[in-house]
């Protein structure tokens, strides 16, 4: 396939050569500014300020940084699934519950992920109070069914809330207000005795005639009695379902669950026998979410304390990032100097394509996005050193061809096609290793394997495409007399 490509670019077709060259310059400029838009934006700001233009800034998209670079805590839990029959469902229910709690911390972009059969990974970037985070995550999910308060009670609580808020506004000590704890309660609903432990299971079924999804609840014998009493005294009234003190689902569609959400189906009749059905206009997705969360409250999976924990202070993260970037820049400069000293003009061209390579790879990291960890940056820096290898192989071949008295354009073509089998074999091998590293391993190695793999693939492209076009454009007939440059 690539052999075809070598024939496709015909070095005598001048027009095609320059079109590709211009394409690469545009690509490089775009990638460079995308990877680091600061200079472009500064320039735009300067021009805008000077001529009162309104040029737009370059598309700014931040790099996604791992916990080790931005600080935060990384927790792994092992769930006790010994009492559960459907382990997969129990784990996704657990993930769901933990996700809800973690979203309440207000950290940016938390991650909750199932790993393997029974492990749960929780990443909390930038979290300050690790201890209370661990406590909150470790709690057993609490599912409750609440009935409506009578209007008098509601009014009392609403008044109390107002009183406390007024006191807070005046910076008074609220604990002096009589019964101030009342203000913490939900003014509209009060807990019943019915909780998750009385619920046997919840399932999603479809209505026989309308085919709409509905949720079936199955209570145990004690639960059936409680449910009968509650439904009897609350006919045509709502029964609110809360998980961990918040609505079981996002009802107002703002993407988060808070006090403005309320999930409260209306009780149609007194229900005996312990089975009930929740109907209504809901999507299958919503029905599944609700059923899963009901189940996680019914059969709580215990996760206890984390089996591993990694906390990185924000200071260390920032320092690590700075150090590794500095190392990358020095490494890149050293490679550029080496290439120019030893390979002269082709070395310079290879250095240009190396810089384009760096910009391209960084752009891909941003676009995908690849979460950059310290290991990932290590892998990327390693790939900078390895990226020129393909160039070196090609140049060595070119030199040999030139020594044999071939013309420059023939030597370039020969250099590329002769070096290709070695480049392919050796890089394929590295790619295999990267894939193995990625499949069988921990997050540290994964970060390393991903960046190294992307680096190798982009470097192949830059060596056989970018360097080649640069060589064809800059080393033409003109240089035939200056072969010492090569």
């Amino acid at each position, binding site marked *: 396939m690539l052999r075809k490509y070598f024939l496709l670019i015909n070095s005598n077709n001048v027009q095609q050569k320059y079109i590709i060259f211009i394409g690469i310059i545009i690509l490089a400029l775009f990638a460079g500014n995308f990877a680091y838009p600061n200079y472009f934006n500064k320039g735009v700001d300067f021009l805008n300020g000077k001529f009162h233009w309104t040029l737009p800034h370059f598309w700014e998209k931040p790099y996604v940084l791992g916990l080790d670079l931005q600080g935060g805590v990384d927790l792994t839990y092992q769930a006790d699934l010994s009492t559960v029959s459907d382990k997969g469902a129990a784990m996704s229910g657990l993930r769901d519950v933990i996700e809800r709690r973690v979203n309440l911390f207000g950290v940016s972009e938390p991650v909750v992920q199932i790993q393997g059969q029974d492990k749960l990974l929780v990443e909390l970037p930038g979290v300050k109070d690790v201890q209370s985070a661990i406590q909150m995550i470790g709690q057993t999910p609490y599912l409750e069914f609440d009935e409506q308060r009578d209007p008098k009670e509601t009014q009392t609580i609403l008044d109390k809330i107002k009183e406390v808020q007024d006191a807070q506004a005046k910076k008074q000590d609220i604990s002096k207000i009589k019964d101030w704890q009342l203000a913490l309660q939900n003014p509209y609903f009060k807990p019943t005795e019915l909780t998750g432990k009385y619920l046997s299971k919840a399932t999603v079924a479809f209505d026989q005639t309308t085919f709409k999804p509905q949720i079936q609840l199955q209570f145990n014998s004690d639960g059936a009695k409680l449910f009968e009493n509650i439904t009897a005294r609350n006919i045509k009234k709502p029964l609110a379902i809360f998980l961990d003190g918040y609505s079981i689902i996002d009802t107002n569609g703002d993407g988060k669950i808070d006090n403005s959400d309320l999930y409260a189906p209306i009780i149609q009749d007194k229900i005996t026998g312990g089975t009930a059905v929740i109907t209504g206009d809901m999507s299958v997705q919503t029905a599944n979410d609700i059923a899963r969360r009901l189940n996680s409250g019914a059969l709580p999976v215990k996760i206890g304390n984390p089996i591993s924990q990694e906390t*990185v202070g924000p200071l260390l993260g920032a320092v690590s990032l700075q150090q590794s970037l500095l*190392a*990358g820049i020095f490494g890149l400069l050293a490679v550029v100097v*080496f290439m120019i000293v030893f390979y002269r003009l082709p070395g310079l061209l290879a250095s240009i394509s190396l810089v384009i390579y760096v910009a391209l790879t960084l752009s891909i990291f941003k676009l995908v996005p690849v979460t950059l960890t310290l290991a990932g940056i290590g892998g990327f*820096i390693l790939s900078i050193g*390895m990226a*020129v*290898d393909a160039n070196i192989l090609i140049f*060595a071949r070119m030199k040999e061809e030139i020594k044999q008295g071939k013309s420059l354009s023939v030597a370039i073509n020969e250099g590329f096609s002769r070096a290709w089998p070695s480049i392919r074999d050796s890089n394929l091998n590295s790619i295999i290793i990267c894939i*193995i590293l990625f499949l069988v391993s921990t997050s540290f190695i994964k970060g390393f394997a991903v960046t190294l793999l992307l680096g190798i693939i982009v470097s192949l492209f830059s060596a056989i495409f970018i360097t080649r076009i640069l060589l064809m454009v800059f080393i033409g007939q003109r240089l035939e007399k200056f072969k010492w440059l090569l």
Partner: protein
Amino acid sequence: MAFIVNSKIQIQDLTNMFPFTKYSKIYYAVSGILILAAIASLIVFGLKFGIEFTGGSTMEVDFTSHRPSNEAISKALAEFSLGDIVVQPTGSNGVVLQFKGIDEATHQKVLTKLQALAPLQEKSFQYIGPSVGQDLKNKTEIAILLALVSITFYIAFAFRKISRPVSSWKYGITSLVALFHDVLIPVGVFSLLGHFLNVEITIPIIAALLTILGFSVHDTIVIFDRIRENILRRGVKSFDETVDWSLNQTIGRSISTVVTVLLVMFSLFFFGGETLKYFSLALIIGITSGAYSSIFIASPLLVSWQKWSEKRLAKR
């Protein structure tokens, strides 16, 4: 492919050629000593695994005013029954502590106690449960095994087309020998570092070792590819001459490639911070040894083996 026909008629200047394979015995001796030393160090000192494999806690703090003595720190923490406490100073005012696994509540207590000793800032804390460590060990073993198997297959596949005068599996086995050489030497160095400087085998170092596996073969493949090409082009007059000639052709590339990788790795070693320091050191040792072994071990071994087989054939 009209060019290849042309290039079959070439006159090569063999006078300036360095006869690499002539000194094979010296290389074997050097590598033999290094490998024996590495094995000896592994047997005597063993490897010191980091807490990600053994389980436990590690904590890094930076004291803001002055660093208390190691004894003072150990004494202050005695009440928490943390098992063996390892206190290692880092940087100008920092300390890395290692002890048995503790939960977050105990961690906070330890932190408060240290705060009382001298004002500080915590940089990182890590706790690895015993099951996690075991799990990681298993995963690492699988990764290493898979890497070795896939590399062997890959080499056998890449060299499936050459059979004369050296059969393709000989290329495979010699590159595997070189591979072991390249991994054993850095592992030996880390065994020494572990014993004398308390350097541990951590996940980054495992990643580096696996990368060395890839890189070492990468180097060997380039040289073997050239040998294969030269056999096809020139026919085989004498195999050792072909190997020597191939090595002379590829030596420039071998050196350049190693130098560029070493440049970035040294940059990482000196400027890249603590976590990547030993990662880059492992790569520096492994890649240097990889370049050495592809030139001075894998290729000469191919020649020695071929000569030995020929002798045996002649005796019959």
